[in-house]
């Protein structure tokens, strides 16, 4: 087991390294190939009133003329020991872990990311609880009452749910509940849970529901399919034949087996979500990681995009790792694979 964990950990780290290299090349190599020069990059760090000499000088000081490999090495080094950025008007220190220094806001990226994380975390945790509970409950009920009016209705709603983009449902919800009826928050605001839990929930309820609706629909479909499959298995028949109560058969034998794949997918979904619910955050103007990312992209603020991508990839890789490890605990065969 220990060797398995170590192997997986090393794999995860390698994966992050590769993701960072690919990301770095896309933002720093592709533009180079297309003819963007070091001074063009430097232009982003200096003001509009800078003279050409200043730009060239800053490009040199920031090492933008160095080979990309050297620049990448410097970036990685910054994560572990921090870096210094010299704009020619004083040195800016970016303490470890330094995931870059934004030339637009003149701030290190990492504290910004940490600052946005609680918003995304609140959104992801709240929404995922809602969709997991709602999706599984509806899925199980549908499977048990297969063919009933409830089943058909639920499946129609679920299929619609997976076919609706969150930026459409979110908009409709906003104009109905926030601007029309004025019973929910109009978005844009976030209150930390520690400050005022009620306001925290009030501000997040609509984004939670929008995001949960989309995923609950998918989970209901998955759960239903899973339940139908397991309830048809031989061991369920055996359990029934033993004279166990139907409720025990469903919960102890049916549900447990049907839920294993759901939990796997759940882990991965939450991992992806932690990296920023880009669409939901943008529709509701929530100041989370996803909004941060779209803002950075609009401003072509490469250090921010880099930092964000790494954090998002980190969450996905971690979610994969955790799911794999849990699997290994549950099913010993996996370790040997």
């Amino acid at each position, binding site marked *: 087991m220990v060797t398995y964990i170590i192997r997986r950990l090393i794999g995860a780290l390698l994966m992050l390294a590769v993701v960072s290299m690919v990301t770095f090349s896309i933002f720093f190599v592709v533009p180079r190939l297309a003819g963007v020069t070091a001074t063009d990059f430097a232009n982003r760090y200096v003001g509009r009133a800078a003279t*050409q000499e200043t730009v060239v000088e800053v490009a040199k000081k920031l090492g933008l003329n160095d080979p990309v490999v050297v620049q990448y090495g410097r970036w990685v080094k910054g994560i572990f020991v921090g870096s210094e950025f010299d704009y020619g008007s*004083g040195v800016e220190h970016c303490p470890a872990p330094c995931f870059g220094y934004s030339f637009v806001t003149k701030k290190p990226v990492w504290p910004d990311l940490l600052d946005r994380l609680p918003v995304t975390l609140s959104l992801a945790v709240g929404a995922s609880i809602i969709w997991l509970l709602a999706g599984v409950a509806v899925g199980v009920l549908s499977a048990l009452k297969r063919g009933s009016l409830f089943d058909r209705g639920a499946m129609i709603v679920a299929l619609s749910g997976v076919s609706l983009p969150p930026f459409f449902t979110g908009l409709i919800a906003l104009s109905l509940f926030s601007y029309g009826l004025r019973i929910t928050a109009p978005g844009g605001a976030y209150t930390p849970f520690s400050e005022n839990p009620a306001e925290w929930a009030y501000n997040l309820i609509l984004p939670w529901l929008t995001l949960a609706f989309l995923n609950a629909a998918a989970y209901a479909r998955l759960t239903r399919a899973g339940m139908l499959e397991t309830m048809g298995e031989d061991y369920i028949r055996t359990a029934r034949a033993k004279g166990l109560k139907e409720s025990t058969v469903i919960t102890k034998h049916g549900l447990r087996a049907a839920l294993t794949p759901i939990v796997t997918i759940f882990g991965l979904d939450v991992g992806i979500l932690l990296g920023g619910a880009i669409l939901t955050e943008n529709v509701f*103007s929530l100041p989370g990681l996803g909004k941060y990312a779209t803002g950075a992209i609009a401003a072509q603020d490469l250090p921010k995009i880099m930092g964000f991508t790494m954090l998002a990839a980190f969450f996905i890789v971690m979610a994969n790792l955790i799911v794999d490890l849990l699997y290994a605990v549950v099913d010993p065969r996996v370790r040997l694979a």
Partner: protein
Amino acid sequence: MKKRTLVVAASGAALALALSACGGGDSTTTPTGEAAPAASAPAGPTGFNAGLDAVTNPSDKKGGVLKMAVTEDWDSVDPGDTYYGMSWNLLRIYGRPLVTYNPAPGAKGRELVPDLAESLGVASDGSKTWTYKLRAGLKYEDGTPITSKDVKYAVLRQLDKTTYVNGPTYFNDWLDLPKDFESVYKTPDVNTDQAIETPDDQTIVFHLNKPYAGFDNFAALPATVPIPQAKDTGIKYRDHVLASGPYKFDKVEQGKLYTLVRNDQWDQATDPIRKALPDSYEITLGVQGDDLDNRIISGDLHVDIAGSGVQPAAIASVQQDPELNARADNPIAARTWYISLNPDVAPFDNIECRKAVLFAADRTSLQTAYGGQLAGDVATSLMPPGIGGWQKIETYPSAGSDEAKAKTALTACGQPNGFETTMTFRSDRPKEQAAAESMQQSLAKVGIKLTLKGFPTSEYFTAYAGKPSYMKENKIGLATNGWGADWNDGFGFLSQIIDSRTIREAGNYNLGIKDPAVDALVDQAFAELDTAKRDALWGQADAKVMEGAYVLPAVYAKGLLLRGKGVTNQFITGAFDMYDYLALGVE
């Protein structure tokens, strides 16, 4: 450069809206709602546009929290590093420039009054030397006295445009700086007395490299807000701005929240212009635009700092609801939205082809694109009507288009069947996108085929539309553009956008005005000491630009602003064309 407008990312980059900043005094259009009777009730005038020329809800009552909000952050609260009109207006509650604008409604708000200085500047040496004496008893929030050396340091400090990238460059261009001076950080030991002298702690003397009779306008720039060298932390200073005004920063959470409380070291006796009514200010940043409007409507917030008008959704409510309509003001701003024509690219090197565009563009459609009648009046020249020397130029249509004349011009240009060209716009500004689409539609009617190209605001001027080499290489003939006055006279509006000698490698708002006749008029205006004659010269320069058909003016911007519930002394100042933030109080 120009005083910037705030861009609101309503929800996501794509949804950003352009808000115009500065505005100008008198509005001529009255929307559907009834204008209020001009009766002088004891509580001051009320009703639509009441805040344009009078103080609404006047009161001297002190106390309360003034709640302000803005959809996004602005560039910086550091007085040496900001170029937003709203920021210039607001920073005067915590910082005192040498000179500032009279907190009074309408045109009176454009008058300059001494602030840190005892009186307006005293000129000598044919307006090349300007002397100011500081008031006695001035102190920072920490109790240390404010000296003229701090003012000098503050002005010199912000000349370093690689650190303070945002502010204007007037002092860089006009001060008689020694050749070997680079910045206060790189060359701290260079003697700068030839540019600014401080013979004693109360006196400061500016030496210019050419005469300028309106130097008080420079002295009113935020750059003259004093900063003691010992407290300067470079770019980080914005986290700890040292107050010289009646309020000091309490909480500073960049991008989220600022709170300001009373500065007990500020002495009312040294300050004849500030009433300092509220006990504190609460400034929330990043409020969603529609939410912000709704909260001002309900009274939960007092002021939208951006001062450029409500979002499209609220525009309809303001017109339909008489109660809201009575709380609204619709000032015209000292800002023009225009479209630059690029004479570097064929066939715009031919004046007739430029004229064809000016005749073919549908002005009414453009006005609608920029937000309709409440968002702007059709422009006939670059310079907005609130500025001295303005004249209406009737060469081109001021409603609809003139296709016949456009076709004549096309024939004269040798392109009777039209031509193809490209137009850029700021992709995150729906109004500019609509303007570009409108141009595409109306020019197509005379055979001019436009290809549209959007670029993000953040790089629009530095990498694309403001970079002549890019525009030339990519054969881009037209570009949406906008400019607001740094202060409301011909110099403050025109000097940076029509003088060909200010065109740099990148970051230009002037693309095609490269006319020796215009440059000559600019020089004449710089040298002219008489205000009326100077204004007339700027008016002539404006006319000359239109004669050359270098730009297509679209609209003179207006904003639909809402007065807050329970806010006292709210009025539009002619200096910034938004509510004056020095005078406000709460009931």
